[in-house]
């Protein structure tokens, strides 16, 4: 195999569970062996999907000011930008905070569920390639930091109560990071090779 960052040829050797192989020239992480990768990633992706639904169905923040209450959710922020004819900005926020994370979770489930049942999903190679493309555009963790900044900025002019979605969002970030950590792309691609 060859290193993705410097193109050095490396001999692939079997690793023990928990070991990682790094490039001898530039230090890039080449591949790793993780215990029960497919099963664990599948469980984590399923929990991520549930948390994603919760994070988008409930309000993030309850804003209380002089007897008025306003619930802010992920989609209401996008909707207000769109309503003010800032539709490009609304589209960017929609894609990186809602669409890309959702598609990434769904694509993972689509590939992993059949593999776990020893079946080959239809067009697996194409769907699995999307996951890598979507990865940099799913900015869930950055979005949460943006919410926290807004929270602190507003906290001295009004009472703000964190909503259910805020907690779901925090857990979603943990679940998505864990999914990335347990996923072993090399194993998935080898499944494709052996089943052809």
């Amino acid at each position: 195999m060859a290193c993705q960052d410097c193109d050095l040829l490396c001999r692939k050797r079997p690793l023990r569970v928990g070991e990682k192989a790094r490039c001898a020239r530039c230090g890039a992480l080449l591949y790793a062996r993780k215990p029960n990768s497919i099963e664990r990633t599948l469980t984590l992706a399923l929990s991520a999907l549930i948390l994603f639904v919760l994070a988008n169905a409930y309000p993030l923040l309850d804003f209380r000011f002089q007897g008025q209450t306003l619930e802010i959710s992920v989609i209401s922020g996008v909707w207000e930008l769109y309503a003010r004819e800032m539709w490009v900005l609304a589209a960017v926020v929609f894609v990186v905070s809602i669409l890309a994370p959702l598609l990434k979770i769904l694509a993972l489930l689509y590939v992993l569920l059949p593999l776990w049942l020893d079946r080959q999903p239809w067009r697996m190679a194409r769907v699995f390639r999307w996951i890598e493309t979507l990865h940099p555009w799913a900015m869930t963790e950055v979005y949460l930091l943006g919410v926290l900044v807004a929270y602190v900025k507003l906290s001295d002019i009004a009472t703000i109560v964190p909503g259910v979605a805020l907690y779901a969002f925090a857990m979603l970030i943990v679940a998505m990071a864990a999914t990335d950590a347990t996923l072993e792309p090399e194993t998935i691609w080898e499944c494709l090779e052996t089943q052809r």
Partner: protein
Amino acid sequence: MNRVPPLSAARAALVRCHACHLLSRMQAPPPGGRVLCPRCGAALHQRKPDSLARAWALTLTACILYIPANTLPIMTVVSMGYGEPSTILSGVQTLIVAGMWPLALVVFIASVAVPVLKLLALIYLLVSVRRKSRWRPRDRTVLYRITESVGRWSMVDVFMIAILAALVKLGSIATIEPGAGALAFAAVVVFTMLAAMSFDPRLIWDAMENPDER
């Protein structure tokens, strides 16, 4: 001990699939066609196509957009009929004046330090590859990896505006109007991310392998 000279896949006439990482033998493409990966069907390229030209174009676009991103207001807080436009820098300043130091630091790093350093890093990497620099390739690869992974954090301000914009229904007290600066700023983040993606770090190492070419 004999040192085996490092051999890259390119020199061994092999090509690595960018999607599934399979190594396969380099082939001449059929006329008008492309060579596809035997395992996953992605188009095979020795290096990312037009890496330098694309990365330069995207980086320069981001540099130009960086000017309106900082001079135009990212939002205007209208309260009691009086509007107060704020730019990215004045937003940081307001936080410092209000004594919110940790928050000011977070916003400063995400919205000012990261975009500037990212643009400088991209320009430096592009210039060093063009000049076939042989200086500390490993450190330059690490610089590339950091540049690629850290840029997303600059979106914090854009997301904050999206949250504040949702407060429109409290119109009697104050409204927050997102400004054109926010759009320019989001565009800077997107274009620098695209630039980092189109840059191929293997070009850094290609200069190391042809000592006689220099």
